[in-house]
């Protein structure tokens, strides 16, 4: 169920073929309304990260078009789009030469924020994700889960309007995952839009207004949890509706 008429994300018949001939995305179309949480499910290699990277302007579609807040990612300056989005890629991209606090601070500085604006936010998000004790540690020495927490904190820091998250809670312990879910819901209630890919069906069912199932580079099913449950042949009140829809779509579980 989309909220409002303004579309945050519009994807028009997008394909992506890499230089080695691999067709990662074979033509997908979707749209995400303002204030909506859209989840993309799929097996490994389905093309989820490729879709994420195209939305984040890191990759260019081979054909088709993508608009973020009405701005065409191919025609207009991607800088304007990047100003309004927060991205958590699948692989951590923290600066290994810096410590955690510096990573967050420089992320804000690259976005043009002044120190008086970002410094308190950095400390706030470090505390929220329990990173105060690790703030002065070099990234190279951190565990995978701690790095992931730092990545999540970074995404929220610049107050984006759209969060683009690629398997955001991978590697997080259950407590931090629950905290992250709370933050996403808080972000949505403040009018933010979220586009995320995930392997966790529970995460998709809890957070997402609509879910798309990607298989072999194509969107094979899409809808709300109830719509997907009915599509899978179950009653809407039944649990594991999304799992059943996923099984029907791709033949197995994520």
């Amino acid at each position, binding site marked *: 169920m989309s909220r409002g008429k303004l579309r945050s994300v519009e994807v028009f018949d997008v394909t992506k073929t890499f230089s080695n001939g691999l067709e990662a995305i074979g033509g997908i179309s979707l749209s995400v309304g303002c204030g909506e949480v859209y989840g993309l499910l799929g097996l490994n290699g389905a093309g989820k990260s490729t879709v994420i990277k195209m939305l984040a302007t*890191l990759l260019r579609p081979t054909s088709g078009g993508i608009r973020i807040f009405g701005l065409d990612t191919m025609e207009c300056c991607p*800088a304007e789009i*990047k100003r309004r989005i927060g991205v958590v890629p699948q692989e*951590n*991209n923290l*600066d290994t*030469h810096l410590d955690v606090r510096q990573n967050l601070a420089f992320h804000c500085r690259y976005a043009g924020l002044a120190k008086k604006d970002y410094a308190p936010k950095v400390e706030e998000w470090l505390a929220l994700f329990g990173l105060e004790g690790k703030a002065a540690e070099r990234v190279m020495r951190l565990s995978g889960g701690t790095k992931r927490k730092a990545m999540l904190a970074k995404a929220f820091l610049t107050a984006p309007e759209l969060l683009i998250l690629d398997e955001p809670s991978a590697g997080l312990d259950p407590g931090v995952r629950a905290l992250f879910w709370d933050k996403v819901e808080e972000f949505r209630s403040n009018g933010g839009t979220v586009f995320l890919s995930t392997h966790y069906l529970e995460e998709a069912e809890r957070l997402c207004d609509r879910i798309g199932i990607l298989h072999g580079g194509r969107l094979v099913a899409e809808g709300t949890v109830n719509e997907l449950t009915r599509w899978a042949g179950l009653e809407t009140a039944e649990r594991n509706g999304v799992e059943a829809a996923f099984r029907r779509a791709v033949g197995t579980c994520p």
Partner: protein
Amino acid sequence: MPLKFLLALLHRNAAADLAAFRLTAVRMLVQPAVYLFVFGYVVGGMLPAQSGGYAGIMAPGIVAISVVTGPFVIIGGGVISGYYFRTMEEWLLAPVSLRTVLTAKVLGGTCYGLAGGAVVVVLVWAILGIAPQKIGYMVLTASAGALLFSLFTIVVLLIPETPDKGQEVFSFLMMPMTFFGCTFYSYDMLGAPFNYLALLLPTTYIAEGLRAAYHPDSPHMEAGMVLAGLSLAAAVLIPLADWAFRRRFRDFTW
């Protein structure tokens, strides 16, 4: 916004270097000091005295070597760690244009080349007792040299498939540039055909420009020729670096 990003990236480079201070100190101080002591002080003392002595001939060349190799450390380090640790994504996701990221990288490399050169100028004075006589001309030549080799680093690292291969190409190309590019001897010492071959190397113009700044009364390449050589190198490297950067990062498939 671009200026804020540029300043942030320069600050980041300094912060990263501070974190690896011991390595930085070895690179900037110890290596050129050893060259100056062995070739300038010891070997130079054994050779018959000419105008300025051998030390006076090779010292500007050592400054030139620091100027041209400095950019590789910061640009190469950033690109290579950007490849393996995906740090490059952080800069590509900043809300600035691709050309701004390139400019920031080149500016960072230029600053490092100049900083390395400045350290060696002090070492030359401390170990050999030689100081430049035309400081303005020295700064101009060194700045042009650092800029050109920042662009050169970008081209060499980004055209091959991975930056590791680029690093090998860089080492392969730097060796002849260093030893045949008039760094350990002056241009007027070369006869045919080596004097013609030396004109193909940008290091020749940088070393001769610095030699003229140190010893304006000793034989050296004319300023007009230095300017022409550096301008030609710039005319080739600027569009090539821009093309290589856009080719590699407009569609970020690393």
